[in-house]
């Protein structure tokens, strides 16, 4: 590690330490109401108490299953529709602006309709998360397959590659980086929208527990839940970043 990156990391830790110190100091002196900001110790206590309860794990399980189902539907539909549209220039020109135009409207607006159609159980969250994540996945899939270099495709065909070989060795490697980008965006959108749906209106799950703790004015427990969500999101992000660089490096290798 060079000296510049070392001091950059020092500054990052410094900022986080100052924020933590400000949190501790402002609650210790009582300048902030405990309702808004409980002491770090109280949040830690609530957190360590929370993870020993069965209620915590069942809420996490509900949320994770909902996210998985929503993401699976969005992947299948998004990649399927995106690939089929990308096969013809005409279809791309006709449909891509419609999909992009719909995505410009925040899908969150339609959340009350999902509640109306699917009830306040997990069904509405699955449908909401899936339809939100569908758009970036479909749009990126179209972009990924439509922008494959035509002269590579023509070269593969003229060298006698079969349709499957062309798909496997030319189309997929060239589409992979953009495709993965769409899959990553789609995952985090389904993650956030399932959490959001649970917070807005539901009966179970992590988001519901955050809203519930807020309604009951149990701020230490609410902060404990929020801390859990933040840590999960940060770890998933690091994981996705690592995965993406590894896979797209592999994709690059296939070119050479």
């Amino acid at each position, binding site marked *: 590690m060079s000296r510049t990156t070392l001091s950059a990391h020092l500054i990052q830790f410094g900022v986080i330490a100052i924020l933590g110190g400000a949190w501790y100091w402002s609650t210790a002196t009582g300048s902030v109401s405990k309702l808004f900001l409980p002491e770090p110790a109280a949040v830690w206590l609530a957190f360590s108490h929370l993870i020993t309860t069965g209620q915590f794990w069942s809420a996490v399980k509900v949320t994770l299953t909902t996210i998985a189902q929503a993401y699976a539907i969005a992947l299948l539909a998004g990649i399927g529709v995106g690939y089929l549209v990308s096969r013809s220039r005409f279809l791309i020109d006709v449909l891509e602006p419609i999909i992009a135009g719909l995505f410009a409207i925040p899908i969150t607006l339609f959340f009350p309709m999902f509640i109306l159609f699917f009830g306040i159980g997990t069904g509405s969250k699955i449908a909401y998360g899936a339809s939100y994540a569908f758009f970036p996945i479909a749009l990126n899939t179209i972009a990924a397959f439509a922008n494959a270099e035509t002269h590579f495709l023509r070269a593969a065909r003229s060298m006698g590659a079969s349709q499957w070989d062309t798909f496997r060795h030319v189309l997929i490697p060239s589409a992979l980086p953009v495709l993965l980008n769409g899959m990553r965006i789609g995952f985090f959108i389904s993650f956030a929208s399932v959490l959001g749906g649970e*917070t807005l209106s539901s009966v179970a799950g992590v988001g519901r527990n955050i809203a519930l703790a807020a309604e009951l004015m149990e701020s230490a427990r609410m902060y404990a839940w929020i801390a859990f969500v933040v840590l999960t999101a940060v770890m998933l992000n690091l994981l996705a970043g690592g995965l993406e660089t590894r896979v797209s490096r592999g994709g690059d290798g296939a070119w050479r």
Partner: protein
Amino acid sequence: MAMTVRLSEGRDGRLLYASRVRWARGIIILAVVVALEIYGRLFADPAFLQPPSEVLRAWFVTVLPDGRITSALGMAAFEIACAYALSVTFGAAIGLAIGSTAFSRLALFPLILLLYAIPQISFIPLFVLMFGLGAASKIAFGFTHGVLPVIVAVVGGMKNVPALYVRGARSMGLSKLAIIRHVIFPNIAPSFFVGLRLAMTMTLLGVILAELYVSTAGIGFFTRMFADNYNPAPLFALIGSLAAIALLFNGCVRILERQLSRMHSGAPAG
């Protein structure tokens, strides 16, 4: 397909192709509306789905004459405008500060990206606790959503500003503002415009999430009321009005972008 490609060569062919694309798009949208109308009239349970014509009627009969709903819609538009203005102003300022040197980028940008990765919806109860049920909490939530993409776009663009240009401009005695206007802005413009568009998307998301979360006042109250009473026609009409507001704001951003890029291309080079 090969035929159409050959046809679309030349100016007339291109125009013909463009008009075919537009026709096909119009027919698809019309087909969806007609299908919804037929399905809504003949098969759907009226407690869950209403045909588009009924939704349009509900818009004129229920949404438009009700002063409480129109003022809630107006309030939402006001909140979006405020949150967006704050996002762009603070986002550009913070972005310029962080992006100004390679070291501050290295040290502070990861913290911004870390913030960006957090699903902010989990903080919504805090915003309501702190700012109350009124416009302030929605503006604040829209702002925290909108400011991050602007910062990311500005810092991302600043990476591409050649340090030599900035040093040259400074040594020729340009003021800070003039450097931003004539050296930095033309270089970060493409990235900045993407940020402006994304910021609008995120601001809309933040304001609408907060509006829906607060179910005792504003838009959230009415959506909750219509949904709980199984009255989908006015619910769809209300959602449609909000969607129109969202599209209007997106359109404004696009116009702003066009104005700015004209200014950018009009700027003297060097």
